[in-house]
């Protein structure tokens, strides 16, 4: 999958045994993950880093990558140019973030060993990144694996090709050790070369499959006269010596030929060696085309290495003290088969460069006499079919640089995974496995919440260059500290994360991105996209979804209800309950009778500050405006200090609740649909002031709103019964149950409520955390915090409710009517009695 190709539009099936989320709703792998050949779940580990969950970050990093510590330092990081933030202020420094985690945990992590469970065994030739990655995949699947390595250590080009200033040897050992701990069935046979110590025939006999990952070990010649001179060396050979610990004395002046990663490592290694004073790199194309990774190139330039572009070597000869390299200038010509413009020599531009040594880094090749003999090589590579990773021998597979030419560590690891997949299919007798594709997994990590995420620039580690003792090859750059890592992590767009918008979900967004990157003549992609977009979404209102206040909308004032601008907060929200009790706004508070004392006291203070009534069994403070809640069956009159009382109605109640004082308001509270008609009758008969409709099923209990979806039917039914009796104005309606916002309140007022009781909403606002036992309150809020949170939520609710009324052209909140509402779901239309939008029945 390349970032915007058709596979992103129509995702191919993944092998069932792979953990893969690429085809799931609400997930599209991020560009960085797609650009990574092994599908590293970078967004998740970046999210974990921000959270400080380093273990989880470590798991995400290492899940598909046995060489994570190495990659943290030297991966060519194709994820970074793919990062969407590249176009803004620079990509996420993904490699540095990986290094941060690996530096923290890599050396000490103890992986869980994966036991051998299979009878069959596999031999692998070559302990480089391709071979060892395949080994881990196969060992993970339960196979015993024998890796034959011709040198005296495991790591391949990672150990022999990369100098210690970029990759200290301890880092490689760290990864190899972790691999060996994880895979007890993995046996690495060092100093065991194919053709010298072991033959292919032996491996085939002893094992059920053989994988050749022989690498591309030998430098290619430049093909110019004079290159046999002893002062002309090949890049990989040079690096091999240096990386084995040699620090040869070099001449003062060194020329490196080539523009790849080997050339970069060679020139920088040379610069650090004794005797060397200056290093030049000549490259036949321009700075735009140079294949070296940008950061290596910049490092080399910073260290003082001179780059001479558009220059082609033509001959080299000795002049006694040193070498004379004859060159010509080049200019870009016609594009060749890989699309790059071929360098063309400029006539008359011949010139020479004098130096003491030439390092030719113009490419590598694989060599193996035994395979040559068996006619398994095609030129310098093992002849291999990419679609099956098989060689000509049905039992022998191949992968990595030795099969497909020189590439990167991460690409070699991809090869190893790909080969292991086909080897496993072969071992399991699966003749037609699904074509391999990199699995894309997400760990669905929440997005970082740093308000500066849009502003922070890329965080770069400190660059040391050659250091004080260059020949010791000290590391060139620092690792992040935690603070810096966190800043960098917060910059991530989190392209993997679902958006907050169902209409522009991550799938939609990525489809639009893909459309915006599709050539109008790319018919296949256009067609693929059309067919994807024709897919029907899941019903956003599944059958089980109960009626919900969320599914009511308001009808705004437009042309038909124009009034003079009810600008800002000019909307009356006050109300007189039963014409007696003056409410400065329609909100009351309940639910804290059994809350911890400090919580109850601070909520009471906030409720008073917000000029709201508290509804409860006990007066929460001496100054609280209080409506007394009286349990069913109790017959005592209300407390004289209460502004009124709510007698919970249980159907048996036939008494006339008395008033302690004439100014007190009185009403029943009813908690079930069954009791509602009788409660209404009783209220009418006794000429009460109000009815409390408890849509939560249990206002008298602890946090009933958390376990019950609020009933909209009760309010509808009450209004309907009263309307039927032509007694709509007989008493006021107070509603409790699931009121979360001013919006909910305005809807309920539209449906007929006159006042609303906030319970759980205040509970959450003052720091309540939902548990099996309702809301629990921690110690992270002071009393002042809780009081001000109470005031603020009531204020915000009042503001929201009045804003809704203003949108409808009302100057009084209590003028919101059922006609101002519409339902968007059938269930809600039915429960609320509010008609559905659209065509009228």
């Amino acid at each position, binding site marked *: 999958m390349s970032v915007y190709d058709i596979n992103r539009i129509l995702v191919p099936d993944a092998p069932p045994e792979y953990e893969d989320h690429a085809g799931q709703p609400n997930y599209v792998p991020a560009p960085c993950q797609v650009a990574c050949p092994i599908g590293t779940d970078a967004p998740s580990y970046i999210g974990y880093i921000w959270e400080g969950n380093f273990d989880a970050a470590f798991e995400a990093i290492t899940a598909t990558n046995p060489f994570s510590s190495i990659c943290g330092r030297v991966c060519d990081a194709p994820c970074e140019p793919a990062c969407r933030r590249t176009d803004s202020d620079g990509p996420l420094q993904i490699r540095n973030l990986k290094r941060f985690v690996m530096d923290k945990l890599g050396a000490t992590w103890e992986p869980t060993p994966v036991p051998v469970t299979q009878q069959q065994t596999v031999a692998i030739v070559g302990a480089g990144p391709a071979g060892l990655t395949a080994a881990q995949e196969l060992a993970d699947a339960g196979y015993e694996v024998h890796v034959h390595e011709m040198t005296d250590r495991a790591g391949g080009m990672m150990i022999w090709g990369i100098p210690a200033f970029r990759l200290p040897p301890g880092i490689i050992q760290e990864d190899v050790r972790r691999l060996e701990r994880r895979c007890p069935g993995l046996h690495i046979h060092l100093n065991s070369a194919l053709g010298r110590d072991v033959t292919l025939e032996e491996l085939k006999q002893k094992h059920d499959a053989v994988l050749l990952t022989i690498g591309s070990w030998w430098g290619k010649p430049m093909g110019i006269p004079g290159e046999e001179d002893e002062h002309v060396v090949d890049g990989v050979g040079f690096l091999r010596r240096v990386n084995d610990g040699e620090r040869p004395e070099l001449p003062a002046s060194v020329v490196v030929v080539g523009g790849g990663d080997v050339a970069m490592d060679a020139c920088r290694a040379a610069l650090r060696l004794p005797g060397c004073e200056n290093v030049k790199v000549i490259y036949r194309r321009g700075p735009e085309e140079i294949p070296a990774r940008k950061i290596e190139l910049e490092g080399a330039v910073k260290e003082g290495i001179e780059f001479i572009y558009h220059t082609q070597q033509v001959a080299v000869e000795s002049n006694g003290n040193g070498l004379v390299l004859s060159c010509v200038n080049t200019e870009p010509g016609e594009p060749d088969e890989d699309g790059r413009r071929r360098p063309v020599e400029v006539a008359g531009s011949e010139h020479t460069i004098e130096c003491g040594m030439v390092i030719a880094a113009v490419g590598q090749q694989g060599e193996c006499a035994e395979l040559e003999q068996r006619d398994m090589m095609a030129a310098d590579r093992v002849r291999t079919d990419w679609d099956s990773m098989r060689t000509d021998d049905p039992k022998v597979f191949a992968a990595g640089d030795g099969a497909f030419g020189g590439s990167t560590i991460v690409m070699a690891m991809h090869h190893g995974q790909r080969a292991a997949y086909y080897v496993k299919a072969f071992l399991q007798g699966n003749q037609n496995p699904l074509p391999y594709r990199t699995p894309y997994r997400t760990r669905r990590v929440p997005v970082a919440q740093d308000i500066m995420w849009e502003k922070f620039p890329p965080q770069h580690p400190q660059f040391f260059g050659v250091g004080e003792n260059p020949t010791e090859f000290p590391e060139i750059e620092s690792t992040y500290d935690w603070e810096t890592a966190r800043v960098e992590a917060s910059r991530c767009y989190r392209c993997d994360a679902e958006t907050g*918008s169902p209409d522009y979900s991550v799938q939609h*967004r990525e489809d639009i991105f893909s459309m915006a990157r599709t050539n109008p003549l790319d018919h296949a992609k256009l067609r693929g996209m059309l067919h994807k977009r024709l897919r029907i979404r899941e019903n*956003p209102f599944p059958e089980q979804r109960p009626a919900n206040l969320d599914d009511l909308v308001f009808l705004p004032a437009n042309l038909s209800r124009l009034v003079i601008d009810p600008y800002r907060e000019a909307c009356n929200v006050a109300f007189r309950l039963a014409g007696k009790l003056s409410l400065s706004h329609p909100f009351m508070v309940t639910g804290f009778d059994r809350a911890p004392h400090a919580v109850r006291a601070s909520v009471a203070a906030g409720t008073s500050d917000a000029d709201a009534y508290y509804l409860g069994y006990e007066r929460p403070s001496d100054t609280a405006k209080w409506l007394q809640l009286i349990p069913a069956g109790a017959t005592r009159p209300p407390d004289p200090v209460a502004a009124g009382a709510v007698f919970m109605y249980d159907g048996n109640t036939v008494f006339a609740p008395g008033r302690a004082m004439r100014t007190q308001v009185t009403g029943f509270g009813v908690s079930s649909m069954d009791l509602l008609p009788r409660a209404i009758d009783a209220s009418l008969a006794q000429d009460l002031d109000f009815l409390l409709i408890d849509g939560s099923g249990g206002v008298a209990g602890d946090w009933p709103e958390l376990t019950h979806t609020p009933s909209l039917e009760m309010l509808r039914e009450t209004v309907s019964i009263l309307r039927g009796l032509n007694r709509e104005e007989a008493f006021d309606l107070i509603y409790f149950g699931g009121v979360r916002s001013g919006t909910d309140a305005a809807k309920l007022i539209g449906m007929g409520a006159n006042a609303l009781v906030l319970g759980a909403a205040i509970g959450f606002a003052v720091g309540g955390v939902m548990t099996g036992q309702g809301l629990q309150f921690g110690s992270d809020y002071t009393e002042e915090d809780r009081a001000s949170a109470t005031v603020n939520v009531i204020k915000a609710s009042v503001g929201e409710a009045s804003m809704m009324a203003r949108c409808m052209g009302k100057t009084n909140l209590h003028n919101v009517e059922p006609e101002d509402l519409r339902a968007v779901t059938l269930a809600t239309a039915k429960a609320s009695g509010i008609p559905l939008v659209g065509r009228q029945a």
Partner: protein
Amino acid sequence: MVTLDLAKLDVRAANERIRAAGAAGEDVEVVNPDARHHIGVGLIHPINVHVRGSAGYFCAGLSDQASFEVENNVGWGLGDNMYSGSVVVGGNAGAIPGVAIRGAEIVVRGNMGSRAGQVMKAGTLCCAGNANFMAGYMMYGGRIVILGDSGERVGEDMTGGEIFVAGKVSELGSDAQLTDTAAEEIDEIREFLDRYGVSFKGGFQKIVNAGKKLRYATSERQMRSIPFFTFSGNSSYWNPKVQEDLYIKSQIGRYRIRGYGGARPLPHLSDLAFKKDLSDAGRVVDVVSKIDMYTEIGGINGANPLQLSMPVMIAPMSYGALSASTKRAVGLASSLAGIAENTGEGGMSNAQRDAATQLIFQMLGGRLGWNIHDMNRADGLEIYISQGAKPGLGGQLMAKKVTPELARIRGIPAGIDLRSPSRHPDILGADDLVIKVEELREATGYRLPVSVKLGAGRVRDDIKIAVKDGFDFIELDGMQGSTGAGSAEVIDYVGTPTLSAIIEALDALESIGRRQDIQIVLMGGIRDGVDAVKALALGADAVAFGTSAIIAGGCIACMQCHVGQCVTGIATQDPEHEARYDPEAEAKNIHRFLEGVRWQIAALTEALGYSSVRGLNRDDLVAVTPEAASITGLEYAPQYRVRGAGLEVRTA
């Protein structure tokens, strides 16, 4: 001197003659004015116009450099939106004299009606008599001089400017305060009065903004989005979003603000399926050349229509909410695709005009950036009544985005949290609206289509008014539409879905037999050619893309537009952030997206068996959810949800 007799000429002909006289440098005398509306609107040359009698609504409106003298009285909206120039009225003026003026001098020798100088930006409005209530309502700048009494609630919600009252200040408006006058201010007023021959010797009280409502006291902590599926479908009632909302509100004590479109799923075009088996759709390679998609919008009443290469437009989005670079990219892309772009609120910059070959110019209640010169260079005029994202509420542009440059175009003080008025000063009902539409047509010589932008609400009623008021087309915006900043609750809970909006609009038009008398451009969560074809099949004449075009141009849907430091440089006025946006590259991306839309429309139209998009119709569709079926009246056919298994079903 040219004499025009309105007993013999209608206003339209008279205005053409006045404009011609202005261009020729001749003065004009209007006799028998008969209090006709729109006398002298749209003048852009220095000219003296003498009205011998009384004028009706909007006299001298939408003009620049002209000088008017009206002997008797004028109706409301005197000098509407005048730039430079002057009007002297011998008698009284009706309501909102000097509305939205941007530099003119207006003198009323008698009394003036309510809301004088509403949303004015600069210039002087002077009244020798008394003012009625709410003089200086929501004014942003300039000077009002009242020699008599102020009237009630003077300076109500004024943001900038000064009001000088010589008589009694009966009651200060909200967020207005009295302040001291400086001697030179009085001198300047006297000089002004002398110039217009008004003799006055007394002193003044001065009223200015009290500054209590211009900025929010506490700022809202910004949170990055919670995935929508955690608070929709079968998610819990007290889901993480509810808890986050409560937490934030418990900190700030007011409603939350955010950008972008709705956060909650609604019944949508996605809940409709095509009846026909479309597995062959797109098989024809050059399908675009085979399908007639050319669409004209806005020409039904004789104006020059917008000429669209496909039934698609760019939705109105303002320079302000979006960076100049983004507006440029969208404009360029609209030109490349042969469709129309729209300024949204907040004026037309040269860059926008240059980028878009067809550009609709939008007029909002605050008249921010509205003026006759940009009207003249527009390809369509649009009266914004409301928008799908936040109908009933004015625009919000947070202070961070109100740069000096932006403030200059809009004519407002820089650095305020700009809350635009939600209603027009001169449109209080359908009857005013019809006169307003006429004013716009008069001012631009009936050349330009005039449309109305409407957020879906009481669509049945609203569209009947729109058609009766003579709009050429309506941009009908469902509640899935997006915004740069609005109350989160309003975005999610006020308005009705795009799907029901089109159905209700068509039902209403059918019920009065007027379907042919207005064109409908549907918008609000329309994301691609598939959505577009469904909308067209339901009966829309065209669709508009807003958010999806922005996403095509690099938006990552993080929903932080309101913060003003957009990470991609789109919804920001911060130069450092805007520099992150490459308008040329993004114009190409947006253009490719639009070409993808074109291809999808063509491929679907072809696969449905038509050679023109006008063949698409309701019979092409079924509903796959009970809600969508009830809303649209389409057959409920959930079996169409599964394409592959649908083959047998479809033939049964």
